[in-house]
Structures are given as structure tokens and as C-alpha cells.
């Protein structure tokens, strides 16, 4: 039962309205370094998104459709009917301000319109005017305002300063999920062709070719072969994977960032090595050059687009005839899988409940989707003593762990990565409790904000996270930031370079592979990055 406040505590309640004066009269100014470039027409055309044209957020004329107000109104109305959560979140907020100072963008920027409550209020004010009697009659007195082009620009500017990380929702007494408000708001902007290049291009590429960068199947295979060569140099063992193999028991899908961008590439080598290690223990797994993207930038445009892009996972699983799907280290990929995939494209009746072929463990949490996170899979292997590990190979590292927002808050993956890390390296230090686990601070680049042109925004948004990393760096000498998300791996190196340049970034499976001891391997002298292993600094082979 909740504690009942005592009379003297009750008398201390501050009855002054916490928020906000004058925000409606502060016009939006779209600033370089904060906004992402506008989407290109070819990318919108390819996926039949509306209003494809060249446009720039800093132009006065956004080249909106003539009836844009009507489109927004109808879109708003339609979504209020379809999504009960949206209707509820529009109505129930009492502007208590509990979320106000919990957003990394507000903390880092000091811009009040980045307080989640005020960011939502930008939309809620229009909702009141259009859809509530009080708002229609009382206007500004009821916190209502008309939608005009300036308001629309304000929406756009701030909707693309939210990473949908959901930290604010943790503190809301009503459980309002501001990420859903952002998702909903972005859907409305998409109806007018107002998307960003960094989101729209990956969506089109993913839809056509299968991954964000438009890497074709042969290039995908080339990259994995290149990793296999590297691994052979380090271990003396040839660890060729299988591609698109029909009849395999398990399909592996990972974000393409792991295949094409450092330091994710080392994590990808980690997967390859783990799978090879397990082959003799009964692992029967294949990669796919078609389902070559775990991430889903469609999720940052509309539910429908997210569904279209997500569909390839089950389609490829069915084509290959696998029993279940194993997924790589990723963030929003897992929010889509865990919370949407079954509704979007399920039920996958042709698949079976995931069971580890090595340990026999049933992943009951994946009963509906038939897709398991690799960190759970690996934690289970270690728990059952199936891996021979030499954690001292990672003794040059003092590691801290960043809980990636979506796996942590979205699906409760909190213990598994820590368990794995503690088994593969000897020096692990937690960041302060208010910055990890459910309360983790976002990297500042999720939800399609990890473009280059919005670098100041990323540095602001990542400040609370970097601040906690800096603390453990100064206190314990931490030099490695581990994470289980491909966007983290893309975003953090830049963030660290600005705030804590002494700290590097790794995926957990890179450290697993460094520690993994193979039968018949040559003496390991370097880690996957080609750096000397501890104690091997003088070896010729290094």
C-alpha cells in the first residue's frame, strides 16, 4: 500500500502551477547543429510517402500541400480513434512536471520545450483547440491554440529532438508514454512529407535492398568474409559462416551497423566466433543476406512503415524454413520485436518456441514472437558452463555498462548483459544508480537522430550519459563503455570524443569473443582490434 502523507507533509504541497509562462509566445527558431536535413523526394517516392519534394527546414516555404491543415486534422482524428493511448495521453496529463527534468535533451540543452511535458503540450494545445469543447470556447485560457505554419514548424523541430527513449515515462504518475506522443506526432508530420534525410533514406534502402545503407547481398557476404579472414589471422582458425541456408534450425538477424561500421564490426566478429565455437556443440544457424537489417527506421516514420520493414524477418524465416530467430545486439530493433512484431506480422505459426540447442533452455519470454536476444542466449550458455572463457584477456579494460534504452526499459534486459560482462572481464564498474538500468540515460542519438548535421544536439542529449561515464572514468579509471545497441556503438565514439576522450566503446560480444578459448587455436596475441593482449605487448606477431 502506498504511504499516506501526513498532514504536515500535505500542507507543504506547492500549489503554484509549476509550468509554464509565455511558451506559446516564444516562436521557434530552427538552428543549425540541432535539426537534421530534410528528406529527399526519391526516398519518399520509393515507399509511397506523401508530398515528395526538395525542401529544407531552414527555408521559409516548406512546400506543404495546399490542404495541409485538413490533412493534419483528419490524421489527428483518425489516430485518436485508432490509438486509445493517444487519446488518453492527450487528456490525462495534469502538467505536474514530474517528467520535466528527466529528459536528457532538457538536462543537456536547458531549452524548456525539451521538457517532455512541454514537448507534448505543443501538440496537446492543438488537440484542445480542435477536439475539446473547453479548448474551443476558452482558447488560450484553456491552454489551447490554433495550428498554423509556425506551430507546425515548432512541432517538427521538437519532435525530432526526442529519441523516444521513455525515461520520462518512468517518472509520470499516470504512466504517460511521451515516446508514443512523439511517435504519433511524427506520423502527422510524415503525412505532409516532413521527414529527415537520415530517417527517410535508410527506410527506402531498407525497403528496397534490405538494410539502411543499401548494401547488396554480395557486398554483405564480402564483409563477413573479410571478418572471417581477420579472425583467421588472430586465431589461426577458419570460421566460415552459412548464408541463406535452407533448413537451418536458427536464423540470425542483426543490425547492419554491426557489419559496416566500427566498432560494431568487432561485435559482429564476436557473433561469428561464438557461432563457430558452438557448431560442434550442436548449433545450426544461418545468416541472411536478405534479412540483412535488424534495425527498423520505419518505426520513426509510421506504424505502417515499421510493419512493412519488419515483415522481412518472418518472411525470410519462413522461406528458409528455420525453427526460430536469434537477434543481435540492438536497441529500437528490440522495441519493435518485443512490443510490435507479433501484432504487426504475427502470429508466426510456422516457427517454434525458441529452445537453446546447446543447453535445452526454453526462452519462454519469446513464446509469442519466436525471436530471442543474443545476450539472453549467451548468458544462458555461460550459466550452463558451455563456454571456456579466459577473462584475463580483457584485463586491459576497465568496463562500465550503458543500459540501452529499449532493451532496458522496453523489455527488462538488465541482468543478462552484466552477467555476461562479469564472466568475460575482470574489471567492471557500475555508473551511479540514477543513470543506469530502468533510469538509464539515452545516448542522445536514437530514433533517427544520429545524423552528422545535428552534432550539437547529440552532444547536448548525450551529456547526462557522458557525465556519468566521466564520473566512473575519474573514480575507477574506466576506459571502455560497453553496450548492447548498434546505434549506441555508432553514437558513443563521437560523444566520448567530446566529453570523455579517454573512453572507447564496445559491444558485449566483442569482449565475449576475446575471452573465448577455442580448441586448436594458435596462441592469441591480439584482441579483435589488433591490439596486443595484456602481457603480449612484446610479441613479434602483434
Amino acid at each position, binding site marked *: 500500500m502506498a504511504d499516506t502523507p501526513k498532514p504536515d507533509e500535505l500542507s507543504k504541497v506547492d500549489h503554484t502551477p509549476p509550468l509554464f509562462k509565455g511558451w506559446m509566445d516564444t516562436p521557434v527558431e530552427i538552428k543549425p547543429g540541432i535539426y537534421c536535413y530534410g528528406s529527399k523526394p526519391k526516398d519518399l517516392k520509393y515507399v509511397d510517402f506523401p508530398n515528395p519534394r526538395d525542401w529544407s527546414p531552414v527555408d521559409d516555404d516548406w512546400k506543404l500541400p495546399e490542404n495541409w491543415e485538413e490533412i493534419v486534422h483528419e490524421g489527428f482524428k483518425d489516430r485518436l480513434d485508432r490509438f486509445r493511448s493517444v487519446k488518453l495521453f492527450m487528456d490525462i496529463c495534469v502538467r505536474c512536471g514530474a517528467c*520535466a527534468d528527466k529528459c536528457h535533451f532538457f*538536462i543537456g540543452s*536547458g531549452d*524548456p520545450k525539451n521538457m517532455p511535458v512541454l514537448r507534448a503540450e505543443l501538440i496537446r494545445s492543438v488537440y484542445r483547440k480542435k477536439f475539446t469543447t473547453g479548448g474551443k470556447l476558452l482558447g488560450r485560457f484553456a491552454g489551447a491554440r490554433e495550428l498554423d505554419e509556425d506551430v507546425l514548424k515548432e512541432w517538427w523541430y521538437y519532435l525530432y529532438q526526442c529519441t523516444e527513449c521513455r525515461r520520462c515515462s518512468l517518472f509520470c504518475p499516470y504512466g504517460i508514454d511521451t515516446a508514443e506522443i512523439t511517435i504519433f506526432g511524427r506520423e502527422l508530420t510524415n503525412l505532409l512529407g516532413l521527414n529527415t534525410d537520415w530517417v527517410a533514406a535508410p527506410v527506402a534502402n531498407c525497403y528496397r535492398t534490405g538494410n539502411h545503407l543499401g548494401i547488396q547481398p554480395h557486398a554483405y557476404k*564480402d564483409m563477413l568474409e573479410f571478418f572471417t579472414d581477420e579472425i583467421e589471422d588472430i586465431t589461426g582458425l577458419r570460421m566460415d559462416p552459412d548464408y541463406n541456408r535452407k533448413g537451418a534450425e536458427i536464423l540470425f538477424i542483426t543490425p547492419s551497423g554491426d557489419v559496416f*561500421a566500427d566498432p560494431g564490426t568487432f561485435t559482429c566478429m564476436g557473433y561469428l566466433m561464438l557461432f563457430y565455437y558452438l557448431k560442434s556443440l550442436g548449433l545450426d544457424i544461418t545468416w541472411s543476406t536478405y534479412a540483412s537489417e535488424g534495425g527498423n527506421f520505419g518505426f520513426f516514420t509510421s506504424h505502417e512503415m515499421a510493419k512493412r520493414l519488419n515483415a522481412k524477418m518472418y518472411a525470410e524465416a519462413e522461406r528458409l524454413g528455420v525453427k526460430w530467430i536469434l537477434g543481435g545486439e540492438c536497441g529500437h530493433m528490440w522495441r519493435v520485436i518485443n512490443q510490435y512484431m507479433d501484432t504487426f506480422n504475427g502470429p508466426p505459426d510456422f516457427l517454434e518456441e525458441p529452445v537453446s540447442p546447446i543447453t535445452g533452455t526454453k526462452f519462454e519470454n519469446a513464446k509469442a514472437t519466436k525471436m530471442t536476444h543474443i545476450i539472453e542466449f549467451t548468458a544462458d550458455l555461460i550459466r550452463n558452463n558451455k563456454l571456456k572463457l579466459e577473462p584475463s584477456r580483457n584485463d586491459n579494460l576497465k568496463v562500465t555498462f550503458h543500459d540501452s534504452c529499449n532493451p532496458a526499459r522496453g523489455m527488462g534486459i538488465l541482468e543478462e548483459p552484466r552477467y555476461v560482462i562479469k564472466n568475460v572481464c575482470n574489471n567492471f564498474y557500475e555508473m551511479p544508480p540514477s543513470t543506469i538500468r530502468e533510469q538509464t540515460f539515452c545516448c542522445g542519438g536514437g530514433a533517427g537522430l544520429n545524423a552528422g548535421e545535428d552534432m*550539437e544536439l547529440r552532444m547536448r542529449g548525450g551529456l547526462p550519459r557522458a557525465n*556519468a561515464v566521466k564520473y566512473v572514468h575519474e573514480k575507477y579509471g574506466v576506459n571502455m563503455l560497453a553496450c548492447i545497441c548498434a546505434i549506441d556503438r555508432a553514437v558513443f565514439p563521437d560523444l566520448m570524443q567530446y566529453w570523455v576522450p579517454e573512453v572507447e566503446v564496445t559491444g558485449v560480444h566483442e569482449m565475449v569473443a576475446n575471452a573465448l578459448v577455442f580448441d586448436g587455436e594458435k596462441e592469441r596475441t591480439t584482441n579483435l582490434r589488433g591490439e596486443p593482449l595484456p602481457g603480449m605487448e612484446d610479441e613479434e606477431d602483434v
Partner: protein
Amino acid sequence: MLMSLENLLSDKRSKIIKKWRDVIVETYPGDTQRFLRKEKDQFANPVGYVIAKEIETLYDELIKEGGIDKISACLDNIIRVRAVQDFRPSSAIGFVLQLKMVIREELGDKAPMNGLSGEFRALEDRIDNVALLAFDIYSKCRQEIYEIRVKEVKNHLGKLLKQANLTIEIPEEKPDL
């Protein structure tokens, strides 16, 4: 006996620092100021914490003619944040010069008189020099942002071209032809 300026400034330390902090906090919008002042936790409010902590050290170093390394480190911690926030360059580093105003206000007419005018001028010169240092640090932070952007683009494109075998590296040794 006359007090030295350093002693006078030490006496007024907490008042001057509070006012100086207020001057910096007031460069943020109203709703943000309340948060920056109220929340004391260094992880919940890193910006407010850094301002409060670093200006104390900065003040102490300034009045006793402290080392440039320590002063630079304090400035870097504050300016690194302001360099990525919504400030014009002048507003991002203006707080250093505003210390002169805060000190004058706090000491009233006492400072230039009582035989302290020489010391007072020297202090103001030191503050001017720290303002120049702040300018260097601000420029360095902005430069770092640009370098990060360039590096990101180069890594991204260069690696992809190489991986797709669309480029070929110049070998370390020139081949014999």
C-alpha cells in the same frame, strides 16, 4: 589596518560566488533557471552542478593568482557545455567578464579607494586575461565539434568505398616497374 583586496574578496566569497552563479544561470530561460538552481544532484543536473562547482574553484584561483592549468580546466568544464547550447559565442563566455560587475557591485565604493586601486586594477586585468582564455577554449570546443563531424563523414564514406573494392590503397613501397 587596511585589508588587502584578496582578504576582502575572501570575506565576500560566498556572496560574490552566489551572485556570479545567478548571473550565469540567468542566461537560461526562466523555467530552466529554477531547475538549475534547485536540483543539487550532479547526475540529475550536470549543467547546474558544473556551473556551481567550477566557478567556486575559478574564483579562488582568480583572487590568489592561481595557475593557468587549473583555471583552464575549470573554464573548459563550463564552456564545453555552453559551446553546444543555444548561446551566441559572446553569451557563452560572457560570464567571465561579468565577474567584474559582480565584484564591483559587492564591494561597492570600497575597492578603488583605501589604497586598493592598484590591486583592483590588477584583478580586473587578470579577469580580462581569463576572458581571453575562455575565448580560446570556446573556439577549441567548436573546432572539436567540426572535427568530429568531418571524421564521421570520412570514416563512413571512406570505409564503404574500400570495403566495396571501389578504391585501391597506395602500397607502402613503390613497386619496381
